[in-house]
């Protein structure tokens, strides 16, 4: 692909980001901002899941436990009047330490067993969040105090500021992941995915790479957890450890196509779009989850390698010089 096409694509990407950056300025509808924030949340979770789930080939059904842990550490500290920066750092540190602790025992498992054990972790976390009432306030959930009048403009407009933080995190994750997965590190992860024993013979310390991948994948999720808690001002065990937040990002990554930057992105755009259409058009109380489920069934049967590897999407991606991000 020639250089000009690549430059055009880059300009296009920057324009898209600029457009999203303009949204709070051109419209002050809180609906579109909070809807887009949820969209960013799904992109970040689907993308960060994919580092372990797609590139490393270990299906991590408990990926959102990092998100929930981050959200809870942030909220618990904020409630005790810790400054925002300290709470965020503590949330990230908690997630990294947790991932380092579990990586040795859990990475002895493979395939469905690893997936199941991680799924057990997130269900356990949800129960702990319900039961450890002294720390998490149990079923009541944690309500974060609203910023007092007269504090800085940043904390007053918390929806706008969390929108920008979310946008920044999304772009940052996408760029970091594009660099990371096309580096030597990414190559090592891919070789472990293809054949762990062979990778070991070629001098790759698979345990070290797996641990690093798990810890790295936790960081964007933890940060997103902080942004989520800060923007909603309320978290509940089900909102951060529940089945929706556990399974939707993974469904998005698998639907779009795992192991490529564009996969989770396309999956997140498609499913959030479908969800939005269903949400706004189906007025009934039920029927939405059914439609969502049917989409999942059709995709699982008709697109074994995800949407980005269908001919329909491969051509335009190649044309735009983005094939390297989608194979």
């Amino acid at each position, binding site marked *: 692909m020639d250089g000009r096409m690549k430059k055009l694509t880059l300009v296009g990407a920057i324009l898209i980001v600029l457009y999203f950056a303009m949204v709070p300025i051109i419209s002050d509808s809180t609906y579109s901002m909070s809807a887009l924030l949820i969209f960013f949340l799904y992109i970040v979770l689907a993308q960060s899941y994919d580092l372990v789930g797609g590139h490393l080939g270990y299906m991590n059904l408990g990926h959102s436990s990092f998100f929930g842990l981050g959200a809870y550490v942030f909220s618990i500290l904020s409630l005790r009047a810790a400054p925002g920066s300290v709470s965020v750092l503590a949330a990230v540190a908690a997630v990294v330490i947790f991932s380092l602790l579990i990586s040795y025992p859990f990475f002895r498992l493979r395939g469905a067993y690893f*997936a199941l054990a991680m799924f*057990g972790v997130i269900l*356990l976390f949800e129960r*702990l969040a319900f039961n450890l009432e002294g720390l998490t306030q149990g079923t009541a959930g944690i309500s974060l105090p609203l910023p007092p009048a007269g504090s800085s403009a940043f904390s007053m407009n918390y929806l706008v500021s969390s929108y920008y933080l979310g946008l920044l995190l999304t772009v940052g994750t996408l760029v970091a992941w594009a660099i990371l997965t096309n580096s030597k590190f990414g190559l090592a992860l891919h070789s472990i995915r293809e054949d762990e024993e062979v990778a070991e013979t070629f001098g790759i310390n698979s345990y070290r790479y797996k641990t690093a991948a798990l810890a790295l994948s936790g960081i964007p999720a933890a940060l997103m957890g902080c942004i989520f808690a800060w923007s909603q001002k309320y978290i509940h065990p089900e909102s951060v450890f529940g089945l929706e937040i556990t*399974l939707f990002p993974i469904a998005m990554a698998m639907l779009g196509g795992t192991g490529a930057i564009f996969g989770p992105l396309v999956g997140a755009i498609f499913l959030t779009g479908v969800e939005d259409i269903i949400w706004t058009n189906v007025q009934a*109380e*039920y029927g939405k989850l059914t439609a969502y489920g049917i989409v*999942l069934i059709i995709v699982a*049967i008709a697109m074994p390698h995800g949407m980005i590897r269908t001919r329909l999407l491969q051509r335009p991606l190649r044309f735009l010089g983005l094939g390297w991000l989608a194979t």
Partner: protein
Amino acid sequence: MGAYLTQLAILGVLLGGLYALAAFGLSIIFGVSRVLNVAHGDLLLLGALLSYALFYGLGMHPFLIMLAIIPIFLLVGFAFERFLIRPISNRSPHELLIASILLTLGVSMAVSDLSAWLGGASAKGIAYSLPSISIGSLVFPSIRLLIMALILAMTLVLSYYLKSSYVGRAMRAITQDREGAMIVGVNIPRVSMITFGIGAATAAVAGSFYIILFPTNPYLGIPLTVKYLAIIVLGGLGSLSGALLGGIILGLAEQFSGFYFGGIWQQPVAFILLILILLIRPQGIFGRSIT
């Protein structure tokens, strides 16, 4: 105190039997078709709701409903395999795992949503009870004893069928060595279809017992599936007695943790057990090593 603990142990064993009945279906399905059936708890839910409809609509006796449910859900299982699982069954193991989770997750979401739509989201139950039997200071809830007896009878019939019939031997052959079974001429798609039928029927029967004993709401599918996963991981894959033992261990663990630490700690026991067993003995307590 001693009597109370004995009482708890009895309740635990009875609860475990109910768990095991449904878990066994999940186990043989995973063994034969390598599909992680996330919708298994929803098959139980469908069985429970159908018995609810039959009990209040036609006024059928709760234990006769079981007989009506078996053929219906055999067909449901056949159709499930034929139209949803067969199209993806030729993929490589990793892709099959991913596709099966995605697909059965979709089914599970659709089933719980549709059943909430048609039947309401509130918890339901069948009001049917029998007088308890008391021996000394021990009280036996006779309805649970009766259910346990039925489960044991079903287990015996099933294990005889799986030991002696051609289909049963083919199932074990496929679980142990897929290629080998193909070479000696086992019709894998057909056996897989029968496996799904048996899995769906056992789950549905467990559901018709479940709704007699516990309030049943449309969203219990996935949490139940995870419990069953914990059980089959405990007992080892594909083994009927392993599932029974795993179910009883989970039932006992839930009863005793509820007694010692309070009811809120009953739920997490399954997840803690699942994680611990996977970490300490991935092949299950009684299972042989699986590659």
